């Protein structure tokens, strides 16, 4: 791995930088760039792990109870080389849990949040570098505790990532509700603590450490999104923590918070869980929205359309996100009037989401599009997010949800917003900021190959899920073919599974590109994309304290194709009158500047 101090620096420190040991530089670093990369690599590992679990799920759905050639004896050796019926819920539980808590949230907030926030606001590091270190190192035991579930008696938790009671509250109920479920609870409590520490750090950093001239409404959308997401994390995660603690007590100490036999209420778990988990889905999408805005604007060579509405829309989505959790519980027996309230608030979220979508389209309109790999992935983000969001409107309508709740419609919806949305956003962000992180370029050609394969395969896997769901195929069921009316769906499921194999194999292209480029990629310039935000105003990778001198900001980050500038971009730390420019402006630019 290239070191972040690889480039020759002329850093003006007050004190000479002491030579750091390997442990200080790469293991227990307080440098936000290193911590961001630690989150990045751990997240990518769990992406692969969660993806392999998905392949096992898809295989079962295509060929129920069939032995998988070669793989079967390795994975299912303890159950006669085939999937045991009670292991299927464990597969879906761990797939969801790992993808949500160990991949998407850590990669968006942990990796990109950490790496980008100080750089894009013009700061040297986070407000609390040691708290930042602690935040990563709380994740490490969480990783091991969660994975330990695979090795305990009864196996991992198997009550769904939603961990509904009473299944998750009674240790002797089924395999998977034993030690594995307790480990799941402990692991997530650690993850939540890590997130909280990060959130406090990010919010404080954005408010307190912006460079001179970096007013809040000159921040790039990436930062606004990460900032609002951090506020969501701060306010929602503690409620999950309280729920996890009560569940832990029910399981270990003999309380009955959630168990009717002792006066408790099953639905209380659902309320507490979803009060966090609905904001959690916005935690998983908002950073991707912010990054997509910056990437689209850059590669369209156009200002972001409607910057302030974009900011206020993110705030609206986040705020409304706190009052819609009941839409996950329409089938719980709630009072229909309450259901209507949640339906209304949920539908309202479509409004700011639509504003954002139209603004992305308006940003593209008339632009000088540069269809690089990051741009293609950002465009995929917008298009698939629209489909995911629209499918959510169906689910938001309570009468419709009566039919599609807990069917594959919902699975299709969540994967269109999380894979189509967040993950394509991650693909875009990884390829866009790779040069800044590692000082090398990824291959754009292989990025495009990965994009085409992934985009096609993704739609082939997940779009049919809306058909399956409307047809009535339930989720989390190991063998739908045992129901006569669903048996005809097997051929479609097989098609989807084969597409899923292609989807999984396509990721090898990205990983190959990523790791090859890490060592052999072309060296990157400071600003290979000719982008305006502050992270591009320093070297690739940046020096230890990010900037040789504290940047001064003169305007927002979307001055692309300005009629007053010769080039089609104007970095935030360059003013129209030439202030901040390191070299003499070209005669064309000077004329342009003199004209105003």
């Amino acid at each position, binding site marked *: 791995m290239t070191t972040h101090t690889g480039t020759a620096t002329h850093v003006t420190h007050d004190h000479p930088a002491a030579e750091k040991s390997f442990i200080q530089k790469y293991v227990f670093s307080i440098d936000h760039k290193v911590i961001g990369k630690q989150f990045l690599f751990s997240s990518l590992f769990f992406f692969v792990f969660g993806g392999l679990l998905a392949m096992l799920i898809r295989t079962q759905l295509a060929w129920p109870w069939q032995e998988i050639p070669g793989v079967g004896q390795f994975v299912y050796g303890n159950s006669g080389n085939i999937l045991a019926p009670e292991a299927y819920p464990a597969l879906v539980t761990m797939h969801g849990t790992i993808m949500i808590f160990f991949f998407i949230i850590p990669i968006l907030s942990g990796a990109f949040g950490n790496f980008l926030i100080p750089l894009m606001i013009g700061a040297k590091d986070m407000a609390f570098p040691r708290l930042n270190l602690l935040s990563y190192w709380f994740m490490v035991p969480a990783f091991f505790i969660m994975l330990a579930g695979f090795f305990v008696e009864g196996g991992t938790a198997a009550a769904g990532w939603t961990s509904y009671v009473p299944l998750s509250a009674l240790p002797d109920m089924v395999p998977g509700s034993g030690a594995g479920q307790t480990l799941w609870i402990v692991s997530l409590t650690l993850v939540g603590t890590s997130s909280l520490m990060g959130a406090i750090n990010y*919010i404080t950093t954005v408010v307190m450490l912006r460079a001179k001239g970096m007013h809040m409404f000159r921040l790039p959308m990436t930062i606004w999104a990460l900032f609002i997401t951090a506020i969501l994390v701060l306010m929602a995660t503690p409620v999950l923590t309280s729920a996890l*603690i009560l569940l832990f007590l029910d399981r270990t100490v003999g309380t*009955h918070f959630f168990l009717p036999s*002792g006066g408790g209420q099953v639905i209380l778990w659902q309320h507490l869980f979803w009060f966090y988990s609905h904001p959690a889905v916005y935690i998983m999408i908002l950073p991707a929205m912010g990054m997509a805005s910056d990437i689209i604007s850059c590669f369209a060579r156009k200002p972001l359309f409607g910057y302030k509405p974009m900011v206020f829309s993110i705030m609206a989505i986040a705020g409304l996100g706190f009052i819609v959790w009941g839409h996950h519980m329409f089938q719980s027996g709630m009072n229909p009037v309450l259901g209507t309230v949640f339906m209304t608030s949920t539908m309202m979220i479509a409004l700011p989401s639509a504003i954002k979508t139209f603004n992305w389209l308006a940003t593209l309109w008339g632009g000088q599009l540069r269809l690089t790999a990051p741009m293609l992935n950002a465009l995929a983000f917008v298009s698939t997010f629209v489909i995911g969001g629209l499918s959510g409107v169906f689910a938001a309508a309570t009468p419709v949800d009566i039919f599609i709740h807990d069917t594959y419609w919902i699975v299709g919806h969540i994967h269109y917003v999380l894979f189509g949305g967040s993950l394509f956003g991650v693909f875009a962000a990884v390829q866009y900021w790779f040069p800044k992180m590692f000082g090398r370029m990824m291959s754009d050609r292989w990025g495009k190959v990965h994009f085409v394969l992934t985009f096609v395969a993704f739609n082939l896997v997940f779009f049919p899920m809306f058909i399956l769901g409307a047809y009535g195929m339930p989720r989390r069921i190991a063998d739908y073919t045992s129901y006569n009316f669903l048996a005809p769906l097997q051929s479609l499921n097989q098609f989807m599974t084969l597409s899923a194999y292609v989807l999984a194999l396509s990721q090898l292209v990205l990983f190959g590109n990523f790791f090859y480029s890490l060592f052999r990629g072309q060296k990157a310039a400071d600003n290979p994309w000719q982008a305006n935000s502050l992270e591009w105003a320093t070297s690739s990778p940046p020096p230890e304290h990010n900037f040789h001198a504290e940047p001064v900001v003169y305007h927002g980050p979307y001055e692309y194709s300005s009629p007053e500038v010769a080039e089609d971009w104007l970095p935030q730390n360059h003013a129209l009158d030439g202030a901040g420019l390191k070299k003499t402006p070209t005669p064309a630019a000077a004329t342009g500047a003199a004209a105003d």
Partner: protein
Amino acid sequence: MAHAVISEPHATPTWQGITTLKFAWWLFLASEVMFFAGLIAAYIVLRAGSPVWPIVSEVLNVPLVAGNTFILIVSSVTMVQAYAGIQAGNQSQLRNMLLATTALGIIFLGIQAFEWSALLREGETAQSSLFGATFYTLTGFHGLHVTGGVVGLVFVTLKAFRAGYTQAEHGGVELMGLYWHFVDVVWIILFTIVYLI
């Protein structure tokens, strides 16, 4: 537009006059409020949904704990006095009021422990009833937070006795005060809904 002001190298950034650490501390307290909100919401839902609930005044020693509540409120007053002291540069007021706050905090915990032991002796456990489960969980997590606060107070008091705070620099005292008032406010809410209602 407000933005960070860095007036000289290595000066603490402020926003609207609030230092970085104090700003972060408020965020931390906000997250703690949400944590207790989750527990309190659970309590309200469980109690409202329970066909039977013990008559609280018959099970719990309301007068004793009311007195304990008063003790905690007084400890907040002494904390304010400590802070006012160091704001005026009065080291002895700071030290004495910090000692008083710490002592009152310990007394609060002691009386809570006595309350718990009395209840346990009567057979009221976390397993015996939903009332027990919610009671011990709520007061237990609050007690844990008070204990953390007392530990912090010990550190701050020791530092005050070493003349570690001055009229110019006493941020730690302020942060300690904020945390202690938070713990007090949570208790007032808990006492009201568990003991009084």
